[in-house]
């Protein structure tokens, strides 16, 4: 419990640093939110600047932004004045979470068996095939894999829609694209972990007791072999979150990643900060969750 409290307390200065830095960066970028190829009339500009308090000194804007953040209300987006940042982030999150969650699930469901298979067939064909597959997954970036999958399955075979977020069929290609690299990592980590564990004494003991190979691998070895995979889940979740920017663009998925990119280009100050804040909190919570899970699985780990 003290561990949890301490970690949660550490969130505060970390978040403060992230938000302050982001605030300064968005305001340092040249050009403001109210710009278009066609000039905006002076009256409209004055009205907008006043509404958003952009005529105030930067320090005052910063103070107000921090106060709003603490209250959990970032106000309306600059680009879409009729919408609240809070609503935009939660809408985008629901989509990104589904995409990322499915991708992570797929990575584990395919990666772990693949890695186990490779380890048990160490040095033989199955091992090489699985690892070649994994290598390809890591080596092909998702903005290349995505269009190739579209070319084959949508434009060639007409099996799956090439983009948009319309029902189950539209989930297949973006999830595959996003998951590919993580399937590969998970498989390699599982294999490495498994090889290490399989060489240890307690496995020999288990075998000596006459346990079946399935029980040895499935009950005794896998549990320890998965520890590296578990530690990797934190960074993997982070990677999936940032990696989804490219995938969301290629497949026109209305998620958080695309929102962040658009907001940065549009100088939509409140929306950028809202998404950054959300990402920061999400990553910190995920990392904490991974640490807790680690302690549960590995008796050697002590939370301090």
């Amino acid at each position: 419990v003290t561990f949890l409290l301490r970690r949660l307390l550490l969130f505060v200065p970390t978040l403060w640093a992230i938000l302050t830095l982001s605030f300064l960066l968005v305001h340092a970028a040249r050009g403001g939110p109210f710009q278009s190829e066609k000039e905006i009339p002076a009256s409209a500009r004055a009205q907008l600047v006043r509404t958003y308090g952009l005529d105030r000194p930067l320090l005052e804007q910063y103070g107000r932004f921090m106060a709003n953040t603490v209250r959990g209300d970032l106000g309306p987006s600059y680009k879409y004045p009729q919408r609240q940042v809070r609503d935009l982030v939660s809408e985008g999150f629901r989509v990104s979470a589904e995409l990322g969650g499915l991708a992570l699930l797929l990575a584990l469901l395919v990666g772990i068996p693949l890695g186990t298979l490779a380890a048990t067939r160490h040095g033989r064909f199955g091992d090489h095939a699985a690892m070649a597959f994994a290598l390809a997954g890591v080596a092909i970036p998702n903005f290349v894999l995505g269009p190739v999958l579209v070319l084959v399955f949508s434009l060639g075979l007409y099996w799956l829609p090439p983009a948009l977020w319309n029902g189950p069929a539209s989930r297949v290609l973006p999830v595959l694209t996003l998951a590919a690299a993580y399937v590969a990592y998970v498989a390699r980590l599982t294999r490495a972990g498994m090889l290490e564990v399989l060489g240890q004494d307690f496995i020999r003991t288990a075998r000596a007791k006459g346990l079946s190979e399935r029980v040895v691998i499935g009950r005794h070895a896998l549990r320890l072999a998965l520890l590296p995979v578990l530690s990797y889940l934190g960074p993997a979740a982070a990677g999936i979150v940032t990696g989804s920017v490219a995938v969301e663009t290629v497949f026109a998925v209305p998620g958080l990643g695309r929102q962040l990119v658009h907001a940065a280009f549009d100088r939509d100050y409140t929306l950028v900060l809202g998404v950054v804040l959300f990402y920061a909190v999400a990553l910190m919570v995920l990392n904490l969750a991974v640490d807790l899970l680690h302690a549960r699985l590995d008796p050697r780990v002590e939370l301090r």
Partner: protein
Amino acid sequence: VRFLAQVAIGLLLVSCARAPVGARDARWFGSVAPPRHDVLRFNNGAEPETIDPGLMSGEPDGRIARILFEGLTVADPQTLEPRPGQAYRWEASADGLTYTFHLRPGLAWSDGSRLTAGDFVYAWRRVVDPKSGSRSAGMLDPLANAEAINQGQTADVTRLGVRAADDSTLVVTLARPTAYFLFLTGHYTLLPVPRRAIERWGATWTAPGHLVVNGPFTLVRHVLDDRIETARNERYWDAANVRLDGIVAYAIDDLSTSTNLYKAGELDWNPSGEIPSPWIPYLRGYADYRSGEYQATYFLSVNTTRPPFGDVHVRRALDLAIDRDAIANDLLKRTRRPWGRIAPSGYPGYDPPPEVRFDPDSARRELARAGFPGGRGFPRFTLLLNTSEDHRRICEAVQAMWRRELHVPVELQNQEFASYMDATTHLRYDVARRSWIGDYLDPATFLEPLRSGDGNNRTGWSDPRYDELLASAANEVERTKRMAMLREAERRALDAAVFLPIYHYRTHELVKPYVRGLYHTALDVHTLTRVWLDRDWRQHEPLAAEERRR
């Protein structure tokens, strides 16, 4: 690995051979199977900033507004000429200063309430009121007192030149005879808005469930960065002739994704601007590809406040050294039209001044006259562009031409859009690429930006005679005289070489063969009210082909 390679090759082979029965035909780009429902699906490009007609500025927003609302007049789907919309007839006074519009009897909002002339008065006052912060308030400038109200010289919005004589008669008083006024009454800024809904919901009145409209379709669903779904409005006065059950406008920003969706049959229309430009030469061979003139120009803007660009001879030298044919025809593979003027082609009654032509010898002479013979002593300067593959290629070509013909040291600088806009607005640049799109079918829409002090000028150039010509043209009722004044103004601007024209845009769009009643227009604006999906399109081929041709 070999196994995987075999699978991949196999899939590729299969993908070439197999396709849904009846959906493929080599003449068309991808699937030609009409969708299950009578719903038109198209890519609107960017997410609209707002769907409040009075506050919007820009085309993705305008497309949505024209689906949901209807103005006094409606643009003809082919010619864009004003046709009766909510008003069934109108009269103009002889001096061109007063217009009287008669609304159709029995007009209603989608919530069932009556639509009256007062709704237009409310909508227009709201636009010019500085409190609303409308970016397009300038569209109402031709109305009496509009500018004074918008600039805060008077706070009394009731002085705006529009009143409701009775519930079905709207009287408009203009500050000056405006030849193109009936084009403006169909523009999104002048659309009526529902007073009760706005007063009840405030800023969120445009949300689904709150939005009340008077156009052919109503809003059903709006997902940010994804889609806007609409359904037929049964209370629209001409609902009997609306054949679509709805329209879905997607916000897909990736051009390849958009074109792929069209090919896979998930979009029925991929509008101009949504096709990656390297694909265009390849798409030309398909029968569902359409191209035509577009009232938009691409040019370089010169900052006359920075030496040596204050010297007209320097600017002319740069202008004459640009080989427009090489850029539009060779580099861009005839996807644009080389153009040496400020206003685009095709205004009825407008006889444009002579074009600027590529003439390297004269260019060198002008440069020598400015004191830089052979480019000697010319200071290093930059050509600014906003980040884009197309702009980069074009600007590199110009850079090469200037170096080759004039031996001037020019560098390219690219910035992402917001920084680039900031630099051009505050005159922090030497030469910059720009483009301009027409708001209405008249050359004035291209000449207004060069007026002294106009917010869109961004060159520091100012010519009293030019301003005078535009002002007298605005007050001129007689068409021929007015056009002659505009021609003289354009000639002066070309002579001053502040905007160095490069090309005239063309539209490039993909429209499925079963989509009927959707035409190419010069402003690339489309009235979708009467569009329909033809399930027996193969039987109607000649008719459909006629529609496609322009």
